[in-house]
């Protein structure tokens, strides 16, 4: 299976309710769990019937896992049949499934328009933004899994902390030593320079690239394509000045930086914002070489 099996963490619930002997609430919850499982089974049977009657449905096989709910601790796939409508995206189908069949189906989403970067997932074996993926373009049944190479928290939700740490490791903020004197004076930037960094500024932190990268899978400390792209965004911004660029090149040249990349282009292929990640990494390598030559 392409999805990493979630590592079973110790039951380390921080809520005191679980620490002592089972409370009344716990008993009620257990009871509820059992009933919820029955209810799910009933609805799924209904669904299958409906699907047989109605041809315009799509079949989704969705990865399910919850570390603390009985019956979900072992990862499994649930099947959902969703009535197809024109323009339907994978996210629409997931929302329909959740709101109609199983309210515990869990995935991150917010903007529904490919700007918040919440809903990157593994759809039919590729990293995709669910909201930007048309159902009509996919083979059925549609397999929906959490992003590979990340720890699964529940269903389609993965832990993003590692990705955020890498993003924040490259000093991802603008730095300069001089600002224009006048009040209300902006820094000047040429159109060419703004054009040069334009694609790199479009990153929405979805982590699809990181998930697709073999190197990142093998080396947990590798900065990864998105963080290197973030460094590129600043290193190439002429407003920062040469001395800061120097510092930036040192950061991306470290052991787990640009030299790890083996130009496999997987990140570039999956990026929903069409950022030429591999090119950016290659360009930084060239800059770093040029830069080192200066000091020899």
């Amino acid at each position, binding site marked *: 299976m392409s999805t990493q099996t979630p590592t079973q963490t110790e039951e380390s619930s*921080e809520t005191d309710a679980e620490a002592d002997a089972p409370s009344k609430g716990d008993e009620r919850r257990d009871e509820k769990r059992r009933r919820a499982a029955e209810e799910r089974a009933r609805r799924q049977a209904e669904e299958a019937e409906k699907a047989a009657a109605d041809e315009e449905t799509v079949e989704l096989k969705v990865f399910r896992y919850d570390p603390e709910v009985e019956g979900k601790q072992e990862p499994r796939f649930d099947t959902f049949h969703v009535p197809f409508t024109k323009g339907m995206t994978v996210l629409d189908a997931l929302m329909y499934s959740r709101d109609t069949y199983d*309210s515990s189906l869990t995935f991150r989403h*917010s903007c*529904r328009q490919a700007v918040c970067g919440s809903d990157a997932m593994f759809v039919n074996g590729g990293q995709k933004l669910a909201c930007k993926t048309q159902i009509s373009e996919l083979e059925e049944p549609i397999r929906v899994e959490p992003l590979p190479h990340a720890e699964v928290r529940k269903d389609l939700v993965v832990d993003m902390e590692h990705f955020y740490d890498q993003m924040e490791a490259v000093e991802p903020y603008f730095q300069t030593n001089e600002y224009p004197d006048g009040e209300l004076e902006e820094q000047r930037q040429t159109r060419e320079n703004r054009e040069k960094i334009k694609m790199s500024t479009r990153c929405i932190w979805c982590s699809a690239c990181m998930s697709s990268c073999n190197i990142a899978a093998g080396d947990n400390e590798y900065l990864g394509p998105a963080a290197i792209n973030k460094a590129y965004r600043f290193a190439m911004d002429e407003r920062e000045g040469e001395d800061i660029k120097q510092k930036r090149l040192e950061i991306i040249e470290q052991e787990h930086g640009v030299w790890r990349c083996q130009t496999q282009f997987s990140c570039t292929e999956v990026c929903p914002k069409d950022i030429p990640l591999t090119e950016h990494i290659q360009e930084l390598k060239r800059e770093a070489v040029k830069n080192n030559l200066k000091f020899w």
Partner: protein
Amino acid sequence: MHEHDVIVVGAGGAGLRAAIAAQEAGADVAIVSKLHPVRSHTGAAEGGINAALRDADSWEDHAYDTMKGSDYLGDAPAVEALCQESPEEVIQLEHWGMPFSREEDGRVSQRPFGGLSFPRTTYAGAETGHQMLHTMYEQVVKRGITVYDEWHVMELAVTDEEDPADRTCHGVVAYDIQSGEISGFRADNGVILATGGMGQVFDHTTNAVANTGDGVAMAYRAGVPMEDMEFIQFHPTTLPSTGVLISEGVRGEGGILYNEDGERFMFEHGYANNDGELASRDVVSRAELTEVNEGRGIEDEYVHLDMRHLGEERILDRLENILHLAEDFEGADGLTEPMPVKPGQHYAMGGIETNEFGETAIGGLYAAGECACASVHGANRLGGNALPELIVFGKRAGRHAAGEEMGEAEVTTGKEGDWEPADYEFEVEVGETGGQGPAAADGGAVATDPDGVLEAEVERAKARVEELLSREGRNHAEIRSKVQETMTANVNVFREEGRLEETLGDLREAREAYKDVAVSDPSRTFNTDLIHTMETRNILDIAEALTMGALAREEFRGAHWRKEHQERKDENWLKHTLVSWNDGEPELWYKPTILEGENKTYEPKNRSY
């Protein structure tokens, strides 16, 4: 329990700016947000930020345009603050590295926008909001400001004196989405709400799924009035299946709207004989809905926006991102077929009542951004005026909460200035139906010391969650969609008395149904069923106050259209609508609009362009 000087709830443009400002003013500040900051909906803004940056422009002109655009329901002191401070705030963003589009000479680009007398909309391609959000989050990372992300704030911890003006906010109670832990966040100096829009009150919106108006509803239940909630901006060109916005640029370039019979209805049915497709947003939205209501809509739902005649070259050159949006979110190819569009909820002009420093009627409680109403947009927001609001008022609220001396406010909060009660009789009962769980300040514990108030609120929140998780009942989703449906059908661009009353009835039923709501997912891990259930309560409170305002305001002003009242009535209605929760018995009242600015008075004129 966590403790900081200032707690900012929300991490969109307003929240991030507030946090940076509070920290610069010396406060220990933390952000609590149900989404990771870069997921906030500020990232969806496309057009730009209005700022009078150039010599040929002036803040006075920007203020004039804004007052006129607001249909004279903006408060001049707030409007003038917006226009005076927007330039320095935009330059501040540039100094933080925001990649604005550039002119030949290397300065930031500005473009014309509807209702503006000067092209002062400063932009970064068609992704201004994305660039602004990320630039500010970068500054938050740089400064090491603490962010509690994926923590859903449930309620405010407010003392419960009889008069809201005597109450104090000491913090918030939040639920950790990852672990299910409920914790108090004590704020020694102040809490700033920056929770964004409330588009999910409607079933078709350009807003995000997370825009459920939580801050507005929490403040309301704690005793802060909601202001001017009936003023909702509907955008005429959104994609039918998702609500994704198709920019006005398509019509600006010559895109044409057609009905099912292939008629160019803006002209052929006489909606706007001069401006046609380029008439103002509310006029076009109403025209489209009329077509659909009279049976000339496509699939009884939408109309067509056609840009094919512009030719591939021009489309690719100027409207490329529109092709992507139509393709990705509607499966439509704008080069070979017309794109389906319909009106969608876009922006809430109203919100939490504040003064021009972001202060609310409750001590220690602030609001900024789309959730707040200072008021700068009045009855109608101009495009490009929301993003500057985030940075100007975010910063002001942050500084004030951190304890900076900022002078006397001119805008009043609560019933501290002139006010008058409304004499409108609603046919349907509104407010608390009982059993929805007591809200903050509903006469619960009488604690007044900060820790006591917070602890009591944490206990209440724990009991509430426990109850929702353990009992049997109905799922919130059907209640939410009923509310969204009735709001979209009846409190839309068309509003008439009978249907508004009906809506109050529907909302009453929804409140009754919500009494039996339960969460069927028993998990403590990432229980989005639970989060959505709590949000639905907020949607209910907002929908009701909004409908009350829409019923009581018997005139046509800005975005608020009434069938029975087709005129702006300045003699009676140069005033703000306020709705106070009043411990479960909502009360409607008014306060006058402030038209006196620093150097001049804005005399109401006809809003024609």
